């Protein structure tokens, strides 16, 4: 087979699988799963082949929409290092999640629907990875949103799940609006939607710094929405209503990372823009990172702790875009985070299934002895997340923090402080779930999960440990390491130790309930309540306005008004029917007079 076709097969095979499952296998659970897993394994295999073959063509295109001379939107594939690595990450993790799902979703009533949606998601995500122009990326961006909606709402009979799906889509839409405006601004200025085309015309753009700043910040809005930065982060914790494998694949490893991937893709544009753009990006990332950490330390649902952790780590990646020398600084953390966060979520799913869908950590405990494999894998993931030295997370996270030291000292302190919070909530999670005595019956009778679920855990634990080492990562990225003074690294280690010690003091003895209770953090800084209030107000106000308009202007003025006008005209004309013979004769005579006048004298 011609290697030139590999990228196209990688892109479209999941779509074919989704259609096949939907139309041919809607009632065959096992067959649907088999088709899904086979397809994703194929894409994974081909992705590794593409990755290992650097001589493959860099771009290829289908002309999709073309208005000659005016406008052309191709479906194109770009295969530079960035997209190759992302292909490998996405497909590998997807394969493991697909296999894990076979065990997790056993007994569910919508398995074919699930695999079809997952395949659709894979298609959309690969489209974002391989896109070579803004419009194609935006189309697949929206498709990913649709897949996310379908998957979050998988348990659609539950009101909370349906609402969470709607919220995810709507909040994303808000960000995408800014994204679209940014794309339009860039297209207007450069006449091209291709990434390469825009980068060629950068020199002309830099003459208008204000315009370029606005365009870049608007494009960043897409990331704020998709990667759950503040203030559009509210959808991600609620997306935990979906099945856990979905949470791990979409809302930890790949979809949310698409925002960061996009920024890395347009990094040359961000470099050419005035410094204020990257400063704003950094600030939003830093605030998100710290605030999400604050919210995570008081959550009681195992998946929500991990969700806020994801938001916090995404904040790190965005900071990396803001302060790093190249986009690879953030991509490094994206790479390691994908593996260990996916691992953490899958382990959480394993625990949840073993405890019969229990998600409250204060009903767990003592699972170290009962579920050793899961416990050890989760420990590996947790250590990577906290940034403990020798684990993958520390390499990527510390690199970002040291770049912050070099470029923005305040940002350094914020991200370093978040390290304390990260350690705190991570060790809190691990200690409460696995150590101490079981706090409920299900916990006491928990058993280790079957092999189909534990095998992906073990496989993922390996990169969670080793993915950060230079001898490993140099195959994937060319990372610029920050030349920061040793004091920065020591400060970070100090924060890490402080967090670990604090967690140990509070939770090591296995208390029955949380000794610390900070309502502000537990209630997520009341941001969700604020949004609810705002939407109710705004929407309520608009509804009142709309109803007034509908009743008075459309119904009253236009509909009734036109009817009344016709009636009134008829009434007036009817007054001419006098029934009086001579009146008729008079009108007749007058009419004749006029006609004669006009005929004879004009």
């Amino acid at each position: 087979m011609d290697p030139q076709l590999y990228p196209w097969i990688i892109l479209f095979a999941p779509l074919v699988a989704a259609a096949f499952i939907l139309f041919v296998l809607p009632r065959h659970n096992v067959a649907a799963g088999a088709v899904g897993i086979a397809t994703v394994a194929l894409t994974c295999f081909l992705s590794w082949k593409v990755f290992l073959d650097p001589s493959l063509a860099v771009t290829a295109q289908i002309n999709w929409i073309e208005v000659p001379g005016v406008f052309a939107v191709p479906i194109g594939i770009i295969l530079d290092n960035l997209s190759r690595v992302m292909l490998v990450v996405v497909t590998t993790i997807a394969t493991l999640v697909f296999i894990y799902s076979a065990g997790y979703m056993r007994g569910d009533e919508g398995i074919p629907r699930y695999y079809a949606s997952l395949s659709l998601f894979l298609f959309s995500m690969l489209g974002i990875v391989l896109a070579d122009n803004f419009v194609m990326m935006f189309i697949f961006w929206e498709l990913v949103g649709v897949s996310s909606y379908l998957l979050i709402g998988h348990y659609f009979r539950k009101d909370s799940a349906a609402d969470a799906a709607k919220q995810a889509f709507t909040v994303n839409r808000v960000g995408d609006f800014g994204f679209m405006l940014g794309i339009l601004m860039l297209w207007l200025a450069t006449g091209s939607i291709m990434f390469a085309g825009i980068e060629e015309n950068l020199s002309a753009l830099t003459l208008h710094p204000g315009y370029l700043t606005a365009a870049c910040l608007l494009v960043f809005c897409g990331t704020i929405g998709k990667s759950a930065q503040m203030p559009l982060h509210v959808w991600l914790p609620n997306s935990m209503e979906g099945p856990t494998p979905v949470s791990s694949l979409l809302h930890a490893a790949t979809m949310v990372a698409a925002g960061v991937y996009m920024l890395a893709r347009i990094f040359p544009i961000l470099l050419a823009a005035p410094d204020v753009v990257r400063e704003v990006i950094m600030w939003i990332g830093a605030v998100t990172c710290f605030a999400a950490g604050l919210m995570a330390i008081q959550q009681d649902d195992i998946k929500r702790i991990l969700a806020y952790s994801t938001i916090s780590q995404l904040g790190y990646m965005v900071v990396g875009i803001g302060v790093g020398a190249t986009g690879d600084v953030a991509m490094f953390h994206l790479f390691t985070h994908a593996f260990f966060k996916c691992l953490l979520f899958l382990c959480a799913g394993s625990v949840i299934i073993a405890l019969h869908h229990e998600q409250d950590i204060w009903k767990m405990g003592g699972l170290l002895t009962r579920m050793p494999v899961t416990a050890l894998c989760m420990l590996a993931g947790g250590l990577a997340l906290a940034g403990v030295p020798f684990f993958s997370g520390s390499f990527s996270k510390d690199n970002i923090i040291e770049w912050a030291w070099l470029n923005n000292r305040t940002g350094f302190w914020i991200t370093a402080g978040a390290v304390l919070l990260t350690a705190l909530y991570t060790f809190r999670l691990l200690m409460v779930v696995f150590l101490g005595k079981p706090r409920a019956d299900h916990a006491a009778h928990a058993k280790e999960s079957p092999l189909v679920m534990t095998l992906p855990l073990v496989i993922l634990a390996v990169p969670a440990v080793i993915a950060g080492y230079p001898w490993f990562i140099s195959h994937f990225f060319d990372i610029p390491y920050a030349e920061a003074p040793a004091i920065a690294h020591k400060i970070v280690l100090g924060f890490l130790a402080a967090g670990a010690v604090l967690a140990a003091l509070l939770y090591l003895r296995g208390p029955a309930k949380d000794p610390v209770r900070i309502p502000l953090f537990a209630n997520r800084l009341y941001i969700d309540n604020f949004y609810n209030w705002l939407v109710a107000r705004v929407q309520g106000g608009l509804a009142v306005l709309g109803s007034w308009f509908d009743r008075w202007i459309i119904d009253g003025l236009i509909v009734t008004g036109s009817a009344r006008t016709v009636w009134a005209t008829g009434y007036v004309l009817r007054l001419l029917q006098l029934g009086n013979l001579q009146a008729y004769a008079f009108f007749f005579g007058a009419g004749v007079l006029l006609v004669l006048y006009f005929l004879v004298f004009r």
Partner: protein
Amino acid sequence: MPTLGDYLLVSGLLFSIGLAGVLLRRNLLVIFMGLELMLNAANLSLVAFARHGVTAFGLPDYNAQVLVFFIITVAAAEVAVGLAIIVALYRLRQTTHVEDLDRLKF
């Protein structure tokens, strides 16, 4: 010698008087008489034109006079039928006052 214009002027005035009778009188029969005046005015102008348009034989243009003959005949028939209607109306409503006939009023 009176000219054609004189005769036409007289005819026009007669027509106007007839029209006045139709518009201004309330009695149905007098209105009818006004109608007859209008018809006669038309006859007068026709005869005047007949006298004016002398043919090669030195005779008036008798075509117009034949038309006048027809008009008189038809007017007679019309009077007969019209008066029959007025009588029937009188039998029904006991009035010849035109303002009392307002059944078609809105």
